[in-house]
């Protein structure tokens, strides 16, 4: 749950809106309270952020884009937040890799909030996977590498090295 708070505050920071006070209700759903209004649920909170930030472009243009983006956010909420890293690596990254083979961004052909959410949710996993795995999930690596170039999105996190010529990293030369 603390992870959820962290993701939401990072997303809010990216959108440059106050993240508000995040609490959890009896179903352990996140509740955001800000200016005496409260919003419940991961997706709804993100949508509330977007509304405040007026960055509607991140929600795509067509209803289809929007639907796809909602699905990605719910996917991130349901499947990527709870399990441990190895579960994500073994079950979800192969699938995501297959999706990103054909796409530059998750939904539509532009950076959307779906990419932003998955960037933060996957950050701890991506920062710790081995170079072999980065090579194996080359489509994810490409997508992630492209996302992390945005300073605002990265928020001071260090750039993850996706360099494919990593022999020097595996076997550093000692003199």
């Amino acid at each position, binding site marked *: 749950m603390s992870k959820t708070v962290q993701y939401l505050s990072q997303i809010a920071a990216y959108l440059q809106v106050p993240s508000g006070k995040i609490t959890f209700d009896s179903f352990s759903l996140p509740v955001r309270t800000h200016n005496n209004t409260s919003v419940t649920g991961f997706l709804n909170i993100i949508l509330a952020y977007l509304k405040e930030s007026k960055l509607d472009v991140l929600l795509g243009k067509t209803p289809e884009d929007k639907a796809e983006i909602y699905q990605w956010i719910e996917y991130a909420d349901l499947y990527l937040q709870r399990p441990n890293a190895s579960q994500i690596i073994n079950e979800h990254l192969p699938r995501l890799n297959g999706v990103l*083979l*054909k796409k*530059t961004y998750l939904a539509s052909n532009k950076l959307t909030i779906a990419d932003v959410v998955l960037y933060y949710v996957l950050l701890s996993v991506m920062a710790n996977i081995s170079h072999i795995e980065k090579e194996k999930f*080359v489509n994810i690596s*490409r997508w992630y*590498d*492209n996302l992390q*170039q945005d300073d605002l999105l990265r928020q001071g996190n260090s750039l993850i090295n996706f360099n*494919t010529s990593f022999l020097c990293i595996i076997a550093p030369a000692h003199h």
Partner: protein
Amino acid sequence: MTFGDVTTEQGLKEFNSYLEDKSYIYGFIPTQADVDTFKSLKKIPAGSYPHALRWYNHISSFSDAEKKTFAVGSCPFKSAPATIQAPASTKKAAGDDDDDVDLFASDEEEDAEAIRIREERLKAYADKKSKKPELIAKSSIVLDVKPWDDETDMKKMEESVRSIGMDGLIWGASKLVPVGYGINKLQIMCVVEDAKVSVDLLQEEIEKFEDFVQSVDIAAFNKI
């Protein structure tokens, strides 16, 4: 890493692997390099080039007006010679300035000497050649002609290939060589006069029979 002409199969293959870990040709946003390459692609990349196809679909999602707003980016395969030359010349300049270690000056002297010797040799060779009776240079070539699938009519394919007539081209024996999965490739010999027939042209001519021929490779090339 660079890639060549994206209109060729080989170039496309390299382009595909180039884009494997990159979203755009240059940097992390679409640039004019993407637009240029997009324009030079004549057709949509085949499904066997998923990375090139993804890139193509992504770039084609932008409208023409949006494409114009892209930043100027250097295309690696176009700028490659320039970037190679640039450091060399700066190095040379640095070398000239540097009095202690003048690595390049001596090199240049040697180069001049080498060029002189080479020119002399070339001249001698040309003289020797001109004295010889005119010998027609011929090459014996074995071509591998690959069909699309096992249903391609190999007889018709051979007939079409043999129907190509050029001055200085003589077709020789041919045979079908199984490649696997019931597919055969046509191996055909021919003798060409080097001065009259360009092998590239011949390959192109064969590849024009698109209904039968998927690709043509040179299996063996011998000067006679």
